[in-house]
């Protein structure tokens, strides 16, 4: 079984190797953390979603369970970033 941080380290090169433009995300504080999402899937999978705080929190917890390298302090920052740009006001 892989540990999540080892996973990130092992894959960092592969991700960086494809540094061409495909999807843009707004450059506000926390945007670099989205780079950790593309370890497992394209960023479209993340940014097509619109959730409220509960929806994003549950989604990130599931990603962490799968091995996403997101320690608690980064989760808070990611939550703020996702809720700033990808929030559904009517959503959970």
């Amino acid at each position, binding site marked *: *079984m892989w540990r999540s941080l080892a996973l990130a380290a092992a894959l960092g090169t592969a991700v960086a190797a*494809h540094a061409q433009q495909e999807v*843009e995300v*707004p450059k506000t504080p926390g945007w670099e953390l989205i780079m950790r999402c593309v370890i497992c899937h394209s*960023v*479209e*999978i993340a940014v097509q979603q619109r959730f409220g705080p509960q929806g994003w929190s549950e989604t990130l917890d599931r990603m962490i369970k799968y091995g996403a390298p997101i320690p608690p302090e980064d989760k808070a920052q990611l939550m703020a970033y996702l809720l700033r*740009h990808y929030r559904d006001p009517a959503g959970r």
Partner: protein
Amino acid sequence: MPHETEAALSRRGFLIATGSTLAATALRPAAGDAQTPAPPPVPGKEKLIVRSSRPLNLEARVTDLTTYHTPESAFFVRNNYDAAPVDPAQWSMRIEGEVDNPVVLRLDDLRKLPALTQDVTLECAGNGRAFHQPRASGIQWEHGAVGTQRFTGVRLADVLALAKLRPAARHVAFDGVDKPPTPQAPDFIRSVPLWKALAPHTMLAFEMAGRPIPHLHGGPVRAIVPGFVGSASIKWLERVMALTEEFNGFYMKSNYTAPRADNDKEVYSLQSLEVKSVIVNPAEGARLAAGKVTAWGWAWAGEGELTGVDVSTDGGKTWTTATLVGPSDRYAWRQWEHAWDAAAGSHTLMARATDSLGRMQPASRAFNRLGYRWNVIHAVKVDVA
């Protein structure tokens, strides 16, 4: 492959996905607001809208669904996880679980069984999700995650007979070579109840449109479960398991589920497609000349049999029966058409299908978290000059 561990398989699956140019996704900060410009097209699939590049998810514009058999260039792609292409000469599949005679079969073994060819409409369970309010979880499909193909293969029942099903078998699960990005993430495995597995139309297909099934559509061998949501038709098959219960995994118990009608605190795993129709012509926003217009589209009903399509040209105030035309195959969509005498002004056209199970397309659909069962009446606004 038998010598590799789960983890090694997963890692290999991941590295293949990451290494692929098609699949590569990178980031650059955007100057302004949240926006996602379209990722580069996939060769042969340039007409399709990219919903996700990794895993690959592509849908058609409904106006490109112009023929009974959907050309490969307009046929949607729904991958939960990507997979590396499988060499047909190396391909094999295990039949295991509640069987007395577990077997490993190769393509030549399948070709010795009686062949079956049929036209089947496949639709992703989440087709139409983008129209749910508030936004539902998952790929934001509009109308185009649907298409019809001619599949050739063998009956799953004949394959299960070779393995000698035990009486305790009640469900049959399919597993493909696609693997999740990490071992902690759920494998994409789905099961169907035994009645459906043994039904004479449920097949293991190796040809699509008379040629080997293309990799993006699940070749060398794909399960085809007509009438059920597309996710039952597992791609890149490598394992069939006979089970005493419904497969107990994320893609049966969590994803591909909807609230039960009798108790919305509980969910059920999706089986049949809904009764549904789409308008191909005229297109949304079309500007037409007054006079004769043939409004037409497709309608299908999953486990139901399509009984009719009604059309409205006045936003649903009045309805007339459309004419069903073209091929009529039990598990494929049916073309409908309506001769409309278009007068100057703005009009809303609607199509509404009904089926033998007493289902009719609704005017609204209750929100469900995962955005399934979208079969709300399709409406198209046009201007006639």
